[in-house]
């Protein structure tokens, strides 16, 4: 028995245990192995990166499959694009990817390239981000081409409220103001919609207009959810204090104190009057941090005002407030 006489099923199994670079080299062995490389599944690789680099109006695409890096593909050179796609089709018939990070340029040609490149890719998690509305539209369009994977979307701005419900269900949705630097108020209804749609939700910089009763609703929703979830958002100054007082806790509460269904899991002052209190209810942890029992607003570095925040985890949640938003 020689290597090529191995039944096809074993040869294919072998092909699932090889690195991309070894597949490339194996192509230069003989015609049978060159065909086998092209016709076989490459197995599982934890990471795929597709990005782009723009300089002087020229766009290069950057592709990494795990630790295999490829020369940049000049998007304006159709022959280069086709040559790369051809090479990819001679490299494997399919591949499983654990985490696909997509940071490609907003250009229809880049999307076309991605669709061709990723033909027969099984992707478990697609991670991408957007910094402005048009960017987001494109990224959502990209995502729609991969309906079977989990999505992780990081936004550097707060999209128009009307657009948020149109998002597909995300495994992780992060919203901040990294791009715009503006801080906006998010209505409670929007938070509830987002919570219902997405498993993990992180809202930073912006703050959610929640009453203490709304916070109770948030806690109720999360604590009754069977899934492992984490939600973090900032709330208006003093919301947490009201909420904690409604639950029966005060400045003098200590770790282990029980009020109704809640137990204080952690209670500490993190400096000045900035407090951290963790409440537990069922499998849910609610972390209130960066708030002041005195209802004071805090100024931090650069004159920025700090919001209180809440982080809820089910089997963890968290909530935070900032003083920044003062009126």
């Amino acid at each position, binding site marked *: 028995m020689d290597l090529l006489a191995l039944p096809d099923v*074993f040869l294919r199994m072998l*092909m699932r*245990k090889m690195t991309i670079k070894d597949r490339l*080299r194996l192509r230069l*062995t003989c*015609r049978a192995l060159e065909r086998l490389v092209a016709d076989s599944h*490459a197995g599982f690789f934890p990471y795929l990166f597709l990005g782009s680099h723009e300089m002087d109006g020229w766009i290069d695409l950057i592709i990494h499959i795990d630790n295999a890096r490829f020369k940049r593909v000049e998007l304006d050179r159709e022959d280069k694009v086709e040559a790369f796609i051809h090479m990819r089709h001679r490299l494997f018939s399919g591949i499983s990817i654990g985490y696909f990070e997509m940071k490609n340029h907003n250009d229809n040609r880049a999307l076309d390239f991605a669709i061709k490149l990723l033909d027969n890719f099984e992707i478990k998690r697609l991670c991408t981000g957007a910094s402005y509305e048009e960017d987001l539209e494109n990224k959502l369009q990209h995502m729609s081409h991969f309906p079977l994977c989990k999505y992780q979307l990081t936004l550097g701005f707060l999209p128009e409220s009307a657009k948020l419900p149109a998002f597909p269900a995300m495994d992780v949705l992060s919203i901040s103001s990294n791009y715009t630097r503006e801080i906006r108020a998010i209505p409670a209804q929007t938070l509830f919609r987002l919570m219902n749609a997405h498993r993990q939700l992180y809202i930073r910089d912006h703050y959610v207009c929640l009453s203490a009763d709304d916070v109770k609703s948030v806690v109720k929703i999360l604590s009754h959810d069977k899934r492992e979830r984490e939600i973090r958002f900032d709330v208006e100054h003093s919301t947490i204090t009201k909420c904690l007082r409604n639950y029966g806790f005060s400045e003098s509460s200590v770790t282990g104190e029980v009020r109704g269904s809640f137990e204080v899991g952690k209670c500490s002052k993190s400096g000045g009057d900035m407090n951290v209190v963790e409440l537990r209810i069922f499998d849910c942890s609610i972390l209130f941090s960066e708030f002041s029992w005195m209802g004071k607003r805090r100024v931090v570095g650069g004159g920025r005002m700090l919001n209180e925040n809440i982080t809820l985890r089910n089997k963890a949640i968290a909530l935070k407030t900032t003083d920044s938003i003062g009126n």
Partner: protein
Amino acid sequence: MVLITLVSSDEQNFPVERELLKQSGTIETLIVNMNLDDEDTDAAAMPIPLPNVKGDVLEKVIQWMEHHKGDPVKEGDNEDNNAEIVVPQWDDDFFKPAMYGSKHLELTVAASYLDIKNLLTLSCKAISNTFKGKTGPQIREEWGVPNEFTPEEEEAIRKENEWSE
């Protein structure tokens, strides 16, 4: 200690400790179907024929199972991270002497037939490791594969491979 006799395709008998055979999905199924675990059954009198495995290969399989006795058995292998499968030193030493000959390939086929997932995974990985970092001509030489490429064909593939950094 309960012994179960395996019979290879060339009629060699191998009494094997019952516990070891849990690593083989195929043999485990046969043991259940033949009621060999029943106290009333005389397992020694009921050998299990393995018509697809030669004696010398079966001997190697048993040797491998003895070393891996008690190891957890994997469920499927499609999710293996290609880069992270490491062939342990003992297994590497075990596979190496026969690596480029038919014996290792027969062992791989036997591992599949007997449904010994860990052996199959490591055996395939050991073969794929022989390609690691090697050029086409080196692989050809080691595995005795003839070169049928025309210079033009080889050049075309080489050019495509240049996409890799």
